[in-house]
Every structure is written in C-alpha cells, then in structure tokens.
C-alpha cells in the first residue's frame, strides 16, 4: 500500500460497512494515544461508526497527565534567579491555580519553547537551563540522547525536571482499577515503535482485553476498530500488531538501551490516575548532577486539582469531555481550566475543535 491508500475513502467506507455488519453493540473502546485522539477527530472517524460503539480517550496526552505538583516544580524553576526554563509548546499554557508558564513569562520569567530536546543546547540562557521534560517512550530516548551529548561536551549549565512516563503501567492501573468499562484498546503507534509489542501482552493474558497497535491514518484506525470489534464478537482477546510497517516485536533496541543508560523506572504521579508504581522515568543516580530538583532545591508540594474540572475522569476514559460541566462554558481553549483543553492532543480540545 502507498501512503495515500491509508486515507483511501473507498477502503474507509468498505471498513465502515464491515464494522456495521458485525452488529456489535454496547461496546466501549479506548484510544490510548493523543495523536490517535486528534486523528479520529480530524477525519471525523467516529461519525462513521454505528451508534452502539463508543470510543473514549485514554491517558496518552503527555501534557494532560502531567500532575499539578510536577508543573509546580517547573514554576519554581521559572521563578529562580538565573534560570531559563525550556519546554514543549503546550506545557506553556497549562494553568495551576490560574497561572501558567506563559503568564510567568509575561511577568518576566525566562521561559522558552523548544520543538526538539536538542534545541536546548543552543538556547540563550540566563545561567542554568532547566529542561521541563514531559512525554512518553517516544520522547524520552531523544532526551537521553541530549544528555549523552551534554556529557560528551561537558555541558554543566543544563538540568532536567523529568516527568517522563511509561504507557504500559498506566494501562495496567486503569484496568486494575476496573471503574472504566474498556472492551478493547487502540494502542499507540509511536510509543510501540520504541517499546515493541511485548510490554502489552499482559492486556490479553491478565485482563482478557483485546488490543490493536495501529498507525494514524483513517484506514489504520478503521482497521484497528474492525479488528477489535471482531475479537469482541468472537469472544477472543489477543494482541494484534496492525502497524507492522513501523513496529517490531522487540521495539527499537538502540533507543531502549540509550534510555536505560540515563533513566530508570520510578513511581510517578499521573493526573487522574494518582501515583502509579514504576510508571515514570527518573535520572539514574550516576547522572543526578542533571537533576533540576537537586540543583535548584525545588520542593515537591501536593496541590488540589481545580474544582469542577473532570480532566481526571477524561484521562481514564470514565467521562467524555462533553460530560464535564465546565466543557465549553467555563473551560475553553482560550481560558482552559484543565490540561485536556490546553493540549492540542487533549481530548477536550479535540472535542472542542472538531466535535
């Protein structure tokens, strides 16, 4: 297949007909990845599904799952004399207690947007550059490469707030909690390209939930939905890799090796899911010189999430964005209350923009 055939309208309508003819009803699927959320919305894929099939968003928007207490570390860094904070675009706009990094910048803090971790090395800095790193297994190997380069060049004025997270432990936490009905999982394409297929085997083995790893084009998504519904109908639970043009069972070993040289799994705080064991990445002890919390003496504090905001429910698939009382009323992309409305990959923003 050529790239364009992954958005071939005839294939999509053929798959839509097959999905309808399965006659499966009262099913809830979860798309785990934020890029899938956007692609589903942008192509209007949900409008092609029969009424009994609901697709909810999961914990795969890195901005959305970053907890307020992690954000607060970045705020402290931004307020530190002689520090420049660098982060990805959408993180700039997430409010904590009504204030965002963008607001701090308008008030004089040195906060810069970067597109890629390596931009940090060429950034003009007031002294110490603090990289506020969020993201999943797709983003973190790039930061490990940045650290390797910083070590090689002997860069001393760089440090990191590591809020990197791992997808499989979050899925385990959601399924273990059991308060969200999930009949099948649309699994991320980019993350799986790094980690491979094996880390998802527990989904079917332990929880009896089918999962399909897929790409981001409309045909990819419709194929994944069809494959999930077929398994549900046949009462089967398996892990299917439908993104073989990018994902190998063993993943990207080189990226994983590099990641392991600089980071190790650690407990992490997720918005909506709370503290999940070994679901985040912390710097390995031998690289703690790069730890911003240590370098700048940042203090972790627990913060209450904004009242009325249901981001926490949206992230675990327990609510659709439209079921939040603040959605498109008090909470809009211009004045977001919660992060799911901030991030372009957030479920609330996708519903607002494309719904």
């Amino acid at each position, binding site marked *: 297949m050529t790239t364009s055939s992954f958005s071939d309208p005839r294939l999509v*309508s053929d798959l*839509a007909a097959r999905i309808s003819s399965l006659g499966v009803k009262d099913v809830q699927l979860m798309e785990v990845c934020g890029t899938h959320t956007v692609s589903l919305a942008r*192509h209007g894929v949900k409008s092609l599904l029969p009424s009994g099939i609901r697709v909810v968003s999961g914990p795969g928007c890195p901005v959305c799952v970053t907890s307020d207490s992690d954000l607060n570390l970045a705020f402290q860094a931004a307020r530190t004399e002689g520090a420049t904070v660098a982060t*990805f675009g959408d993180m700039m706009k997430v409010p904590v207690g009504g204030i965002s990094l963008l607001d701090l910048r*308008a008030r004089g803090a040195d906060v810069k947007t970067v597109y890629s971790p390596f931009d940090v090395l060429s950034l003009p800095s007031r002294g110490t550059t603090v990289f506020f790193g969020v993201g999943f297994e797709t983003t973190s190997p790039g930061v490990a490469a940045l650290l390797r380069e910083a070590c090689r060049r002997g860069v001393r004025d760089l440090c990191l707030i590591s809020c990197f997270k791992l997808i499989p432990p979050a899925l385990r936490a959601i399924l273990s909690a059991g308060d969200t009905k999930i009949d099948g999982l649309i699994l991320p394409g980019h993350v799986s390209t790094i980690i491979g297929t094996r880390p998802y085997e527990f989904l079917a083995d332990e929880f009896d939930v089918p999962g399909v790893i897929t790409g981001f084009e409309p045909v990819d998504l419709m194929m994944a939905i069809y494959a999930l519904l077929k398994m549900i109908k046949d009462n089967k639970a398996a892990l299917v890799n439908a993104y073989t043009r990018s994902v190998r069972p063993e993943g990207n070993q080189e990226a994983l090796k590099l990641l392991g040289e600089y980071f190790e799994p650690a407990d992490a705080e997720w918005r909506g899911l709370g503290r999940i064991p070994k679901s985040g990445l912390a710097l390995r002890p031998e690289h703690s010189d790069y730890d911003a919390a240590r370098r700048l003496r940042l203090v972790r504090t627990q913060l209450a999430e904004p009242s009325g905001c249901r981001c926490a429910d949206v992230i675990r698939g327990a609510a659709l964005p439209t079921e939040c009382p603040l959605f498109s009323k008090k909470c809009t992309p211009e004045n977001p209350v919660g992060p799911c409305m901030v991030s372009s990959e957030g479920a609330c923003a996708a519903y607002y923009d494309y719904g």
Partner: protein
Amino acid sequence: MDRISLEHGAGGKLSHDLFTRVFASKYGNRHLSRAADKAVLRIGNRRIAFTTDAFIMSPRKVPGCSLGALSIHGTVNDLLTCGAKPMYVSASFVMEEGFPVKELGEIAEDMASAAKGCEVEIVTGDTKVVERGKADGAFVVTSGIGEVLSRVDVSGRNARPGDSVIVTGSVGRHGVAVLIARGEFGLATEIKSDCSSLTGLILPLLRKYGPMIHSLRDPTRGGIGTTLNEIALESKTCLRVEEAGIPIDPSVKAACDLLGMDPLYMACEGVMAIVVDPRAESQVLRALRKRGAKEAAPIGRVISIPKGRVLMTTSVGGIRHVGMLRGVSLPRIC
C-alpha cells in the same frame, strides 16, 4: 486576560476577543467592524475602501516572498476584499539602530516593484528608529485606499444559503514557507510562499460579475479555516465544505503532516475565498483559471443551519466541525 500574549496576534479567536474587548467599545462608530483592518467609507458620492496592516515577518525573506513585497501585496489584497480598485498606499518603517541601509534599500525596492505590479503608488510614509534590541530588525506598516467598484458589495454578511464557495488557489503555502524558512524544524525541503497581488485576478472578476459575487476574503493569518468561520459568523449561515475539494499542495500537506499542523490554519498571501451566486459558479471558475489561477476550485456551499458554523465532510467521508484557529499553531510534541 491581563497581559498580551503571542496568541493575541495570531489572527484567531483571541485576536477577535482582543478587538472586541479593548478597541471596539472605545472607538465605537458605524464604520468599525469585526474585520477591523478595513473599512468602506462614503465620501461625497464615492465609496472609498481604507485598510491598514503591520508586517513583522521573520525571517524577512523566504522563498517566494520578502517583507517589502508582502507589505504591498497584503494591503492591496485587503483593498480587493472590500471590492475596491487599489490606488494609493502609505508606508511607515520602525527600525532598530544598526539596521543595514542596504537591506532597507532592498525592502524599498521590493515594495516599489510590487506596487508597480499591482498598479498602486506609494505616496507617503514615515520612518522611526528605536534603540538596538527594541524591535526585531524592521517592521513595516502600510495603509491603502481604493475606490469600491459600482454594483459591488462583497462583505462577509452577504453570503446566502445556496451560494457556492470557491478558493482561487492552494492554501497554506505562505505559513508553511515561513515556518520552514525559520529552520527550527530542520526540514531540508523548500516551499515557496504564494505571496502575490490578486489585482489582475480579482478586478476583472468584480467588473464582470459584480453583483453575483457576494463575499470576498483573503485567508491570511488564521488560514482558510478561520476565514470560513468569519464568513459563517458574519452572514449567520453555515458553510458546508468538502475536504477533498480544498486544493493543498502535496509538499505543504506533507510538511504539515510531519509537524502535526493543519494546513487549514496556515496563512495564505495570494489566495482569495469567494462566495458566489451558484448560477455564476462555473463562469467564475473558468474566468479564474483563464487568468492563471489553475488550482481554483469549488470547496463547498452555504447552507442555512447550524448558523455561524463550518462543517466539513472529511476526505474519508466523516463529518466534523471546523473551528477558528486558536492560539499560535505549534507542532505536536510527541
């Protein structure tokens, strides 16, 4: 909102909110409209179009466009969207101390040649110099006037159910050309801006089909997505468009896919959106193509409800809402 953020300048919803909250209430007069960079004024028995725009391009030269050319084409195209024949332009410069006179000369030369190409004269101007570091090199502000053609009224209010929506060329090229020329993404490809005057394309059309052309808009900041929303809001109609019908250059599409951006929100500087009486649709398309707009295409229709909304049939047959640009377009982060 207690401070200005970059997003207030991006041409999307926040720009509109800023205009409404800060300016509209204070300036309040019957000429001031939501499309605040232009006005049509009656002076004696003539209708005069008056527009103004500030140009702050970074970098100041990209393939197919320069700050000087843009500052003329932008204002000329704005006058055309009033249904006017562009006539006279003013040009003011804000420069940093240390700015090379040679480059200023190049900007002036680009402006002169652009002005000549669209038959306008630059008749007045001003220069101000600020301390080094107080402006990003040089900014140019141009204003323009022109006379509105008889039997022409192309306000966004005039779109009516049944009308056809046409774009004169492929969308998003200028925005993507600038993004790539900034070099922040390390993309080796080169995309040429569509920056150009539309005088030769639009004036003959207005002269020939005047009353059949209901609205004209240039989808600059905020892209075609935002422009369609403006027309829907002003005319209290719904614009129903077909994604497959919207011409997008494959290289623009590929760059947007890679960066996680939507070409519908990328700026155009040489494209017009035209809302036209359905009876004139095919003639207008033929006339456009004859005058070199080879990619001109019908992209949808005006329907009555839901009012103020833009709905799109996606290229795979799904249906979705197209919102206004919000914030600054940024690439995805994972």
